[in-house]
């Protein structure tokens, strides 16, 4: 791994924590050069890394076809490329892979490298199983959000070497006609704490007790699939096999039965709390803490307890 490129994620113009950890992680392999590819505006002047990095900013745009990513492909030709899973990063990595005729592996949970061979742990079946892969040809990796960064330590900041901007190619045949960011709520995929509710809530108007608990915790809200199918909650909150896969520190499931398709989206959570009035609900088998009780009683009490602190 002589040359490494990282597709960075930022928060308010600075690298987010996961990207900083990724920089420390790749530094372990003693690369000679590191390029940091940043989407959108940034004001990076120094970053924690073993060697000074070159920053390439991608201007806002769609980056939705090979004509758009080809300039980026030229800049990272011959590099080993890493990103941490997001919708946009996976899309860019796959287009980049086809441009560079490079092999890409996504869903990477752990990664080792020695003598030109990568040993890759790829999580499959929504985290139910792990596939160990070895490859001397793969060069593009999309890491899971809960990638094991446990043994990396923060590196002292080094001034950025150079900064350049790549503009999104106007050859592209597509245009954004409307942008609808979700505002005012914590984005579910990034949330450290999640309060999720299912059909057991009975009616969308009952979601106030879920939102109150989420607010008291500073958590994002989520739901089961039938709830979004019924239009009780927006589609982007639906967690599971066919929805968002979350891996928060804490997932509180309220009035959710624990169908296997739901579990597939929450397996990666560190601590799971289940609140359900049916002691036989399958979710309890997958819980760290379980409470058999009525959500209408339990949730407001938990909220009150949190507020009293």
């Amino acid at each position, binding site marked *: 791994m002589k040359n490494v490129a990282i597709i960075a994620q930022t928060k308010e113009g600075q690298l987010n924590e996961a990207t900083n950890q990724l920089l420390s992680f790749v530094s372990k392999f003693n690369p000679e050069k590191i390029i940091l590819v940043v989407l959108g505006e940034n004001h990076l002047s120094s970053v924690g890394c073993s060697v000074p990095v070159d920053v390439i900013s991608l201007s806002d745009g769609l980056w939705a076809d090979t004509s758009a990513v080809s300039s980026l492909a030229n800049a990272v030709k011959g590099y080993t490329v890493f990103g941490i899973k997001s919708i946009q990063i996976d899309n860019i990595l796959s287009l980049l892979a086809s441009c560079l005729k490079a092999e890409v592996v996504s869903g990477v949970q752990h990664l080792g490298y020695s003598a030109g061979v990568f040993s890759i742990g790829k999580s499959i*079946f929504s985290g139910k199983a792990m596939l160990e892969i070895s490859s001397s040809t793969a060069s593009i990796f999309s890491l899971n959000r809960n990638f094991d960064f446990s043994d990396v330590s923060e590196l002292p900041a080094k001034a950025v070497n150079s900064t350049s901007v790549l503009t999104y190619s106007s050859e592209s045949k597509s*245009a954004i006609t409307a942008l609808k960011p979700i505002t005012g709520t914590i984005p579910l995929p990034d949330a450290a704490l999640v309060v999720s509710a299912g059909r057991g809530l009975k009616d969308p108007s009952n979601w106030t007790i879920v939102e109150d608990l989420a607010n008291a915790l500073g958590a994002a809200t989520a739901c089961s699939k039938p709830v979004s199918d019924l239009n009780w909650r927006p589609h982007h909150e639906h967690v599971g096999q066919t929805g968002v896969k979350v891996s928060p520190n804490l997932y509180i499931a309220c009035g959710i039965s624990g169908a296997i*398709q739901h579990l597939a989206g929450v397996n990666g959570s560190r*601590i799971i709390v289940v609140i359900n009035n049916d002691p036989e609900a399958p979710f309890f088998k*997958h819980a760290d*803490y379980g409470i058999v*009780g009525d959500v209408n009683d339990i949730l407001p009490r938990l909220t009150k307890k949190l507020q009293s602190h």
Partner: protein
Amino acid sequence: MKILVCISCVPDTTSKIAIDPSTSQISSQGLTYIVGPYDDYALSRAIELKESNGAEVIVLHVGGSESEALIRKCLALGADSAVRIDGNPISSTQIADAIVDYVKQNPVDLILMGKESIDYNSGIVHGLVAGALGYVHFNPVMHLDLAGNDLQLEVEIDGGKMEVSCALPAVLGCQEPIAEWKIPSMRGIMTARTKEISVLPLNPTDSVKLVKASIAETARRNKMIDAADAETLIDLLKTETNVL
């Protein structure tokens, strides 16, 4: 107007995954297979477009003959013909290369896939195919309208949604609520019997080596808290775990 729908055939979402000790890989014993749920959304939308706009729908699967019953089900839902590229691909690259080779020989206007296969969860094949063919690529697409050569899409992005307009040809990864899953009609099942499934050989490209698979078990604490003392949950989360 030709629409190609690429389907993965994956273990049913309720499957209990096990390892075959003789191969150290996922065992297919006792598993029921289904068309990937996202691919099912893609196919359902393709069939709706066929009905509303007129189109020829072709289903493509890269895999072994055991998938023919599922391919036949896609034909029963309304696809016009099917292609199976025969082999056992072991990576997204091999699958994408096979699809790209096919499309280079048999051009299509629109390629619909699922946002990801639910076995390997890569979410990569559509991007690889779009890139290699030089087509526009969007994923995951939640709404798709087609007027002539123009697509109007609603696409999920990190932290929201966007609406885009673009021109064919395109490769799209689909997710709900792009269409409702459909069930085959009796007539569909009858006519599917005579529809063609052509079989082409897979020329596997050099790829990764699968070393072994293992089952990931997350050990849970399984601690029950009495409803009368529900509030102690907050204390336990603070003292026993450091999540709060």
